[in-house]
């Protein structure tokens, strides 16, 4: 088995403790950093597929994502500027007034596993914070906002409305979610997508940047 294959297998099987050594060995043997990066991205693709087919569950997927993250950390200083480290940046937070972050955290995990760099703004995020973050990170591809309670849905509406008015709007996609949110509501408030759960959120996000 080549070193690259070993790195790939290590991500698939989620052996987080072994990845640093394997990546280093591969580099020492002359593998290019971008080759290794691509191998790991492909490995996460396999993991995602297995998850979709019910072969593995969330905890296994998480440990694979963690493994990849560690591997990428070693590669990062070695990668040329043009080498992308994945699918792009994804800004996420619960809207102002909403303190419920369990669902949002699940989405973070899935989105990260799908290869995005997640900027997690946490809970009770003011509208200005979302806007500011996108301005500071021109490579943001997607903004995700969530509201768990029907009482905070108006805040979601206001957040999306404010984002829709920004000059950067054509460059980003807006995704919304949360237990009381529906496709109709998402359409009504002008979001680009609604997904009912974390796995489909990751799927949708991947489609947006494909």
């Amino acid at each position, binding site marked *: 088995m080549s070193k690259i294959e070993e790195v790939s297998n290590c991500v698939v099987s989620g052996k987080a403790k072994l990845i640093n050594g394997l990546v280093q060995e591969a580099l020492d043997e002359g593998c290019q950093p971008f080759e290794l990066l691509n191998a790991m991205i492909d490995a996460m693709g396999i993991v995602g597929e297995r998850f979709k087919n019910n072969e593995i569950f*969330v905890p296994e997927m998480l440990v694979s994502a963690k493994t990849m993250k560690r591997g990428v950390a070693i590669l990062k200083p070695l990668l040329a500027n043009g080498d992308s480290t994945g699918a792009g940046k994804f800004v996420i937070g619960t809207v102002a*007034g*909403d303190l419920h972050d*369990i669902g949002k*955290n699940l989405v973070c995990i899935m989105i990260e596993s799908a290869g995005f760099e997640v900027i997690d703004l946490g809970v009770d995020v003011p509208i200005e914070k979302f806007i500011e973050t996108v301005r500071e990170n021109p490579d943001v591809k997607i903004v995700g906002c969530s509201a768990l309670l*029907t*009482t905070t849905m108006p805040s979601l509406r206001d957040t999306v409305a404010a984002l829709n008015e920004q000059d950067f709007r054509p460059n980003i996609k807006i995704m919304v979610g949360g237990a*009381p949110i529906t496709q109709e509501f998402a359409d009504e408030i002008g979001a680009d997508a609604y997904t009912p*759960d974390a796995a489909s959120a990751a799927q949708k996000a991947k489609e947006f940047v494909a």
Partner: protein
Amino acid sequence: MQPEVCFINQKEIELIHEKALEMLEDMGMKFEAAEAREYFVKAGAKEEDGIVKIPRNIIEDGLKTVPKRDTFVLYGRTPDKDHRVADNVPTLAAMTMATHVLDIETGKRRQATDRDLTMITRIMEHLDAVSSASALVTPQDVPMQASDWYTWATSIKNTTKHITGGAVGKEGVRDAIRMASLAVGSEEEFLKRPFISFWVLTMPPLRVDENTCNVLMESARFKVPSVISSGGILGMSSPMSIESALVHTHAEILACVALSQLVNSGAPVIYSSYVRSMDMRTMCINMSSPESIIMKGAMAQLGRYVGLPTEMPANLRDGKLMDAQHGFETGMGGTVGALSCDFIVGMQLDMDLLVDYADLIYSQECMSNLQRLVRPMSFDDETLAYDNMEEAGHGGSFLDSDHTLFNYQDELWNPTVMERGNYENWEAKGSKDIHEVCLEKARKLYDELKDVEILPEDVRKAIDAIAAESGEKAKHIKR
């Protein structure tokens, strides 16, 4: 004897309680309202970065003064709807905050409206096994930020039963009390028999947000009951072992009970818990998984151990419609709930998001069935009926005996929608399944109750006015 189900034995209960006390002493609890922390500090707790380390004597003192299960009365607006917990008859309590209903005419899933809440509440008023007619749905067609206020208004206007609901901050508590007071004439009258209570939900692990602290403290001030629940999710906001989840869940409830007593000694509380599992494939929470139901049973045991009335959401079904999954979940959760706690929170599907009118009738039927299941036997002359045995003699029949005539209605549970006859008669009645039978009954009740108002118009208007003016204050509250 009172039949009970046990998931943990006495030694294990004591171990969990002890570990919970240790956890509150060592790790402490994060109360995000400074006022709440001050109460603890004044009582001798240490505060550090918003976390209070609570010495066990504060918890133990709180458990001494909190009203106990054996004297606890869940008040209705009218005394005929009071429920005495010591009678040991488990009842259904409506869960709150579902967002969708199955339309009573079309059967299609759609957003719940204020009219739905009105009609669902009126129907629950007529279901004997339901002790709390709380707002099963949150209307989606009222000003959304103030929907808690509108929900309280509609509930209070349409039932004489107890209502548990969410409130937004101290003002939300006070406004709900104002509305309830209007329904009984004055705040003084209301406070004699507080027929509403407030959900107090912690944010596990070991955290209570500011708004929730405020709701707990304010309801304690009025001596209006708080239904205190800690509801972690295994592997998410609770560790991935039931044993560990039980410890911190119990600890969080104890800390909240203690706070209520520090604010106002003798303030009533109900012990509850939403601790549940999550499906590791779909990442959806599961209200009716075996683990969730085990935890409901075990938490009920812990609530009993500290002497409190218990309310457990053992009848929220993960199923999406009244099918075999829904039926099994109703039966499994309901049976454990009836054999372990005082109030079984239920009557929602799709975890806790959907209400089917037909399921209201079904839930009433199942609860009534379970009330029979858990009724203690009593061995006395009347039940042993030796004379009756002698009268019938060896190989005789009891069908025409007086003992049968006088006792059968009480001894045998009598279904109202479940099928009990032979195949031919069932076929002759239209071969209906239980959903159809329940739906017909629900529709009949719906029609009968369409225009029934139970409060005078001026009172209803005054209640509505409180909801209508709530918009501005609701806007600025985090939840």
